[in-house]
């Protein structure tokens, strides 16, 4: 029995795989080393945002499994609703601190503009994701918030296709459409960070830095092979 013929190079699958591996080799996607300057509490807030998102989705899935009214009449349901709400508060808190931190680092430097843009859009999409949750609660908060929020949305014409007083529509947006958008944006954001690397510090003493970088031992060990590519760090 002869070996299977090699997949022709015209294969879309091969092309996608080769492009993917070229852009993000496994060592870069899941690194086991990072630059020494990544040593500050501010870096915690990026991963804390993602961790909060995971808890939001987990608790949201449990609420979705039992239906939108479950949490009103059971203690367990209310418990998971509370976890859902607090994880949303933690998500926004972590994300805001993360964004401020990245602003003061000017983290868009070195060709990382798309990293900032995806992060900023994630924040902006997360706002209606949360709002649709508030108006899907089926309680007084939902009644009041929906009847107030409609005016702003109607004023710019959004209300014509996004009706905050329509529970069914808002629930669909909240548990499916907007979470998909947020997860897709966060995924793109993380992949861009992995591709471009964490932005290096501002150079404040270029001469010393150059000497340090040029030094075979004092300047540090060479970066892992997967992190030496400079193509994405223009």
């Amino acid at each position, binding site marked *: 029995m002869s070996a299977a013929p090699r997949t022709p190079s015209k294969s879309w699958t091969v092309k996608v795989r080769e492009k993917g591996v070229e852009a993000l080799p496994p060592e870069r996607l899941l690194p086991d080393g*990072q630059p020494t300057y990544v040593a500050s509490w501010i870096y915690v807030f990026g991963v804390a945002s993602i961790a909060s998102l995971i808890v939001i989705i987990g608790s949201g899935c449990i609420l979705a499994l039992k239906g939108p009214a479950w949490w009103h009449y059971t203690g367990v349901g209310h418990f998971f609703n509370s976890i859902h709400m607090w994880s949303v508060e933690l998500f926004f808190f972590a994300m805001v601190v993360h964004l401020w931190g990245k602003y003061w680092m000017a983290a868009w430097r070195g060709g990382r503009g798309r990293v900032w843009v995806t992060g900023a859009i994630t924040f902006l999409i997360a706002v209606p994701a949360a709002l649709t949750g508030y108006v899907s609660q089926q309680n007084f908060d939902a009644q009041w918030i929906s009847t107030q*929020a409609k005016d702003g949305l109607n004023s710019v014409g959004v209300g014509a296709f996004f009706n905050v007083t329509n529970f069914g529509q808002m629930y669909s947006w909240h548990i499916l459409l907007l979470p998909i958008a947020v997860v897709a944006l966060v995924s793109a954001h993380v992949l861009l960070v992995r591709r471009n690397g964490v932005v290096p510090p501002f150079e404040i003493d270029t001469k010393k830095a150059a000497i340090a970088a040029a030094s075979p031992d004092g300047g540090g060990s060479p970066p892992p092979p997967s992190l030496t590519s400079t193509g994405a760090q223009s």
Partner: protein
Amino acid sequence: MSFLRPKDDTQPWKGRYQPYDLIKEASIAVGVITLLAVLLTVLFSSPDDKSSTISQWSHELPVNFATAAATELNGTSGTAGYGPPYNHNSQGTQAWILRPQKWLGVSHPINTADDFVIKPLETVSSDPALQRGVAEYKAAPEKQKQEWADAYAKPLEEYATAEEEKKTAPSTVSVDLSTGTVTVQASGAGPVPLMMTSLLSLAKSGGLEGGLVTSSQFFQTDYTKPLLFMADGGLLAERAEGQHLLGEQWGMMNETGSYPGQPWLWLYALWYQVEPFKSSENADILVMLVMGVLSLAFICIPFIPGINMLPRKIPIYRLIWKEHYRAQQNA
């Protein structure tokens, strides 16, 4: 777009690397956030104030209900004169030549007289006198309908004004507190008093909610009509004021109780507290436009001259990377 960017001499890092376990860090973060969320849940739970009902409204504030219903019938309520996306009775808000509310049109048509009063009353088929009254009203010319509805609404509006100004209420409106019925002495109102008394009874029985969500579908998830009807009355606003949810109380970012609500909407809520937005009848579109521009600017920060240079000028980065700079100095 390079002309928008400051000189960028950021070089790829060629210095030291330290061991790092991404999966371990992410797992620990998920664990810590889960624990924090559970801790906050155990300590503070979450708010769940029961929703208001039209039945509750008509029981607790029968005159307010009758007044709102009268304005739905004579076309002077907030919803009746709202404009798109509910009706064509106004053009909605505008900013300069921008009228997106009008441009997008009426997508959720609501005729408050028909949808909030006439159609629900037509479901009460067991009351022949009422059905005769409704038929008489529907058959009348538009001018006559308006005169009847205005004649009924006028004493109620005077009553509401007197209550608001804390003056003696006019004797043309009386409430029987034991039965919760409202009597309006309105001459020239035709069948409207009969209709509105029946609407109040229907509301008290809990039947009006059903009448407002009824359509060709058995299953319903669209509460636009009952919500808009209730928002035209005073019960929701009364509860909201007690829960610091009104616009002037930064209500858009609050929720019931002392919970954090949506603090990320602080900037959106801020504009409603300051002039010229605060007193503008077009505040909603103006605030949305300002927020739209600011949101776009937020996305484009890397490309905005001046804003993208601030991090270099204000050396907060020295604090963030102090370990790195210290190590560099000691090298």
